[in-house]
Each structure stands twice: as structure tokens, then as C-alpha cells.
């Protein structure tokens, strides 16, 4: 077993143990895992040197899909997650067709524009979408078993851990693949990519699709954890937060996404209760220090030990 997978396993066990010992941890841990999935999605785009200021829209779309279908048909949680992710993926595929033409700030801002349209529409058509208060839905069955909150959360947590592992593996695999490498090449030289006969747009579309799907998965989990979706889920601040976490955790590896999401969740939680009124400042300072001390994020700090063989590139 490689050192990396050993560490991952240890982390998973630690999380499982901690939540068993302190049940309140389930909420922040679930939220961190949900965020981590979205962050993993955003990391895919960062590979191509692009940041989206609007990717929370896919989490939001998935969340609303979960809420709508849960209210209308009382589907099972597993099905809801699948549906939410599917819808986000389809949306990503469609919006992606449009987005692949843009780079840099134009890409970032167009995503923001789309997300803001979604955000306002959700807020304005209160009759259908519940307006800014959002949509609440009852706890669905999980695997067709009806459960109390504790049981449901435990099950959801288990599922979230599995999904995070699977997503992390898939993203890593994608990065290593020819497609993933071509995606990374978009960052440095699209002209050359075209002159190799590779369509930068198509490659980027694939990356966009993957990132939308991961954000959708994260959003579905988030919605199920809260039992409530609000337009806030798709607000640009959320999108910014996700990028923030990606840098904090390190964008070179999906593990960084999850590390970042956990650190962010808990730093924010404790900063908010210890430094009431100054938690933003605390987070900001942490980020500035990170950029100077560890520009490759937390994962970058530890990666040399985790991946001795992969060398400088990881």
C-alpha cells in the first residue's frame, strides 16, 4: 500500500472515529465533505489555469433538484443524490458549450453572470422556489429505510466518505490521463494544443463537465445535510469560498480539496466563535500567510512526504 493511500485511510478512520465520539461533528464533517467535493470540481478548472466565480451554481442547481424531487415524489436519498448530480452535470454540459470559448477573467465573470441569473431567479419566483427563504424538505428515506436524524446522518456520512474517496480517485485518475494532461496544457499553450490536433475547447468542456458534476454531487449532499436549500447556495460568495478552499488546501491533488474543506470548516467555525466579528480577518490572514509560506497549499506542504516518487510535479 502506498503511503498516500495509507494516509487517506487513516484520515477516513479518524473522521469516522471522531464523529462517532462527538455526534455534533457530523454536521460540520458532512458539510466539509460536501464542500470538499465542490472544491475537487473547482480544482479541475484550476488545472486549466481558470477560476470560476460562479461554480456554486451547480451545487445550487443540484440542491434545488434534490429539494424539488424530495418534495414532489418523496424519493430515496440515494436517488435524490443521483438526480441532483445528473441535473448539475447536464447543466454543466450545456453551459460548458458556451463557456469553453472564454479564458481568464472573462471565464470567471461569465460563470458569475450565469450564477447570478440563477440566484436572482430563485429569489424572485417565490411561489415555485420558495424565494430567498428557500425550500425545506422532509428527511427522505436512506436506502429505502426511514431513519431518525442520528441514523440518517450516520448513513449520509458513510456515503459521503465513500463518494469523497471515489471522487478523489477519479479526479486524480483524470489528471494523470491524456485528457487531464491536455487540460493542464490549456493553461500554458493553447496554440500548441491546437497544432497537435487536439481541440482545446473539447478538452476544456470535458473538464468543465467533470467540475460541474462534482459540484453537483457536493450540492446534493449539502442539501440533504441541511434539509433546506436556499438561493444563497449559488451566490458568488460561495463560489469564491470554494476557490479560496482550493488554494488553501492545495490544488495539485484532490486530497488537497478535502483537507482544505475540513480546515476551512473548522477554522471558520472556531474563528467565528472565538473572534466574533473578526473571523474574516483571521481567515484572510491565514490565506495570505499560506500564499507566501506554502503557495501549493496545505497539501503541497505535506505532499513531498506523501508522494516521494512523484517528485516535483505533484
Amino acid at each position, binding site marked *: 500500500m502506498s503511503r498516500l493511500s495509507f494516509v487517506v485511510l487513516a484520515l477516513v478512520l479518524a473522521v469516522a472515529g471522531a464523529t462517532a465520539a462527538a455526534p455534533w461533528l457530523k454536521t460540520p464533517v458532512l458539510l466539509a465533505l460536501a464542500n470538499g467535493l465542490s472544491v475537487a470540481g473547482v480544482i479541475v478548472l484550476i488545472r486549466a489555469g481558470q477560476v470560476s466565480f460562479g461554480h456554486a451554481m451547480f451545487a445550487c442547481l443540484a440542491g434545488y433538484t434534490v429539494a424539488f424531487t424530495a418534495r414532489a415524489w418523496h424519493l430515496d436519498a440515494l436517488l435524490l443524490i443521483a438526480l441532483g448530480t445528473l441535473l448539475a452535470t447536464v447543466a454543466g454540459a450545456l453551459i460548458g458549450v458556451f463557456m469553453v470559448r472564454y479564458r481568464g477573467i472573462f471565464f470567471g465573470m461569465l460563470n458569475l453572470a450565469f450564477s447570478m441569473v440563477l440566484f436572482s431567479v430563485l429569489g424572485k419566483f417565490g411561489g415555485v422556489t420558495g424565494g430567498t427563504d428557500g425550500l425545506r424538505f422532509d428527511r427522505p428515506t436512506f436506502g429505502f429505510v426511514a431513519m431518525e436524524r442520528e441514523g440518517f446522518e450516520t448513513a449520509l456520512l458513510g456515503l459521503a466518505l465513500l463518494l469523497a474517496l471515489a471522487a478523489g480517485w477519479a479526479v486524480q485518475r483524470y489528471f*494523470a*490521463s*491524456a*485528457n487531464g*494532461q491536455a487540460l493542464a496544457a490549456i493553461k500554458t499553450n493553447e*496554440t*500548441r494544443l*491546437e497544432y497537435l490536433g*487536439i481541440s482545446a475547447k473539447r478538452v476544456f468542456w470535458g473538464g468543465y463537465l467533470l467540475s460541474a458534476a462534482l459540484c453537483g454531487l457536493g450540492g446534493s449532499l449539502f442539501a440533504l445535510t441541511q434539509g433546506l436549500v436556499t438561493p444563497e447556495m449559488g451566490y458568488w460568495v460561495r463560489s469564491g469560498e470554494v476557490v479560496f478552499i482550493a488554494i488553501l488546501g492545495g490544488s495539485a491533488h484532490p486530497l488537497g480539496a478535502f483537507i482544505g474543506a475540513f480546515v476551512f470548516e473548522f477554522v471558520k467555525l472556531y474563528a467565528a466563535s472565538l473572534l466574533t466579528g473578526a473571523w474574516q480577518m483571521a481567515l484572510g490572514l491565514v490565506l495570505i500567510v499560506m500564499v507566501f509560506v506554502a503557495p501549493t497549499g496545505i497539501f503541497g506542504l505535506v505532499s513531498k512526504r506523501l508522494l516521494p516518487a512523484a517528485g516535483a510535479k505533484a
Partner: protein
Amino acid sequence: MNAPKGLLSTRGLSLKFGGVIAADAIDFDLMPGERLAVVGQNGAGKTTFINICTGYLKADGGQVFFDGADVTGQSPRAITRLGVGRSFQLPQVFTEHTVRECLLLAASAVHRRPGGLWRPLAQAVNADEVDATLELLQLMPRAHDLSGALPEGQRKLLDVAMALVLRPKLMIMDEPTSGVSSDEKHDLMAVVMKALDERQVTSIFVEHDIDIVRRYATRLAAWIAGRIAADGKPDEVLRDPVVIKNVIGE
């Protein structure tokens, strides 16, 4: 109009940049198997001609044919897929990939194994081809360096290698040897030309070094102010007084 016979042909290619005529109604045919050297004044439009033929620039008028098909206005990607490889005057490499990864990526565009795009890059393509090319262009010692850290000359070699690995039918090289140090230059050309010959690749190379032109070209075209001023056997063109006056000098 019937497609011309050449592997690469143009008819009436014209392009102006503001007041500058970069291509002036160029008619041109390249036959399979030729090794065409292009010399010319700086700013005569050599790069522009290549840019139009490979789809990077849209001409104001005229047509481009490759291998019997009209490719006017097609994208660089489409034209590359038809079998045109190109290297650049300013090397175009993936600066955050290692030299080897750059070549693997290039290879993945053509020599992919079944289902390859989802497999790790190193396994998705035929690595022998890549390693052979690395050897050929003497880049092996640098295989694991980031290509962004290469000095200009080696970046140039990598740029050529990336086109070569595509196994094109036509290889267009824009000043492959400028910036490559003199003692390596001839070796480089010898190696590249040998590789092209072995694979029966037709080639165009822009070159300012007359020695190299003499040694490797089977045909020579001289560009002056957006047109082809002379075209033919290298020694004939090199004796052309207009070319001597405007391009080669005494």
C-alpha cells in the same frame, strides 16, 4: 476549380495588415517528397504564409489546398489532423509540463492506444515513439525537466520534436535552427531531415543559414515583400541577382 495536384498548394493568397502587404496573391505548389527551403527578407511574409496555410490566420483572399482538399479557412486543428505538422519561430511548448510529458501529450493526439485518453498519459500512448524522438533530437538528458526551464535553443528542439512525433505528411518548420548553437545546428538538421526522409515526409523549412539551405533543400523559394520572388533549384535561386541583392547579400 479543381484541386491542384500539389501536396500543398495555394492560389491567390493575399493578406494585408493595415498598409503592409504580408501576402500578395501567392500561387504556390509543393510536390510530395520535396524539401523546400524558404529564405527571405525579414518581414517578407514567410511566417504569415505559414500561418495562413495552417489556418492560424484568415487570408483576405485566395485558397489553400492540402492533399487534394480545399482547407481554406479551416482551423489549425483540422489542418493538423489532415497531416500537417508545424514548428514555430518562437517555440510553442507547454512550459509547465516536462519535456517528456510534452511529447507524450503530442503523441496522444495520434498514437493513442484504444481507450487511451482515460488511461494515465504514459500508458495511453506508445512511449517508444516518444523516446525515440527524444533520442533523435538529443533531448533525452532533459526529459524530466520542465520545458519552461529550457534555454531557448532546446526549447526550439522540443518544439520541432512535438511536431515530428505527430508523424505528419507535411512538416513545416519556421526557422528551426535560429537560436540553436552553430555546432548543433547541422547535427540537428541532419537528424531531422533523416527522420523526415525515413518517414517520407515532405517538408518546408524557413531558414536564414544559406549553408543549411544548400545542404538540405531540394528546392528553394525566396520571399520578398509578400511574394515569391524566385523559386526553383537551390543553386539557381541562390544565383538569382534579385535574391542576392535582397536576401543573401554579397
